[in-house]
């Protein structure tokens, strides 16, 4: 269907890998933060709330810069992770996943938080009287009931990660096969005179992937929603 060159396939494959890893790693954090913001009142909640949504309003290049100085090879967090855990972000695809995950995080947290807020707390009371302690109650009642929101959040994060450009290119540059995602590849092609035609194919791939993500999420949300409706 898409007649792509090996280099273009590499960019597509890398984009998918980066986005999937970013989403999966962000998900436990997204569920935890979404739950905390929905259910708990704690000191500094407004600050946590602000930090979570910051990547949505900051210029992506600023987010990329902040990642570079903190998670870069010589940044305080980056140096620590590299020396003690062997995790290196700078100029690696893992760095691209990190920046994509952070850029997608606000879009992930929001639907998850709303889903937790919408749950009928009386069902949780009922579960408690049936013998469910806090953690098991969360796993058997709260999380399954919030599932449509969790799926929606994951898909939003994935789609945002797929389209990420500014923060990623600032943080880990634009290295073919390592950090050159679809967006970066399109950008590179457009730097060459007459590159529009070549870029067109990747643009089609990007559109197709985004549409597929939306359709899949809609399907999941409907399925999950249908199970609960009307009790």
């Amino acid at each position, binding site marked *: 269907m898409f007649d792509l060159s090996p280099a273009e396939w590499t960019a597509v494959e890398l984009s998918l890998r980066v986005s999937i890893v970013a989403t999966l790693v962000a998900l436990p954090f997204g569920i935890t933060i979404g739950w905390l913001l929905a259910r708990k009142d704690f000191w500094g909640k407004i600050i946590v709330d602000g930090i979570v949504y910051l990547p949505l309003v900051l210029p992506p290049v600023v987010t990329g810069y902040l990642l570079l100085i903190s998670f870069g090879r010589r940044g305080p967090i980056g140096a620590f992770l590299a020396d003690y855990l062997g995790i290196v972000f700078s100029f690696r695809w893992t760095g691209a996943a990190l920046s994509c995950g952070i850029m997608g995080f606000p879009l992930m947290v929001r639907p998850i938080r709303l889903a937790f807020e919408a749950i009928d707390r009386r069902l949780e009371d*009922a*579960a*408690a*009287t*049936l013998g*469910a302690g806090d953690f098991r109650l969360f796993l058997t009642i709260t999380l*399954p*009931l919030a*599932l449509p929101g969790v799926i929606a959040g994951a898909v939003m994060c994935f789609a945002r990660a797929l389209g990420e450009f500014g923060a990623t290119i600032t943080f880990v540059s634009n290295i073919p096969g390592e950090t050159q995602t679809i967006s970066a590849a399109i950008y590179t092609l457009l730097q060459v005179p007459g590159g529009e035609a070549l870029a067109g194919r990747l643009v089609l791939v990007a559109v197709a992937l985004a549409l597929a993500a939306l359709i899949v999420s809609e399907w999941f949300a409907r399925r999950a929603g249908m199970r609960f409706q009307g009790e």
Partner: protein
Amino acid sequence: MSVLAVDVEKRLGEFTLAARFTASGGVTALFGPSGAGKTTIANMIAGLVAPERGSIAIDKSMLFDAATGIDVPPHRRRIGYVFQEGRLFPHLSVRKNLDYGRRMNGHAYDAKEFARIAQLLDVGHLLDRRPRALSGGERQRIAVGRALLTRPRLLLLDEPLASLDSARKDEILPYLVRLRDEARLPMVYVSHDAGELRQIATNVVRLDGGRVAATGGIELLD
């Protein structure tokens, strides 16, 4: 026979709840007009609402005692609770709703007990359905079964028939009477409906304005 001893106090805005009573075997009715504090007392017994002062105990086991700071969390109280609106879990089948308490309490699956309860409440044919596919009366029967299968030491029923029309009420009451006569499980039955209570209650605690107005037999319902 279990003896439930309740002595609780709590301010709720303008309203002060201060109630003291005991309940032994049989079905103890908490009877009174709406706003008398019946549901709040049931929630206190279950551990969902904390009193400000007083204590709640079953036999010698203290569930709540403000003086010593004891407050056993709801999931460790072993008290079954049937709510007015059923509160079945919408994402689980009827079978899994019924089995939920056993799983959470870590009891071994007891097929005979499951079958006995399913038969007692006549819900065997509903097991593979989702709660949304049930009638109101069926839902309440499942809610009763779900509470019973946790093997509680006390069963609380908060207006279990209030959301049903009178035909459905008459459909469910016989099951509850059967439960009273066969299960020998002490029950606390909250209702404002004297006619309903006459059929099921053995003792009556009459509440009015957050206080116990009278305790005695079903003659208090007249």
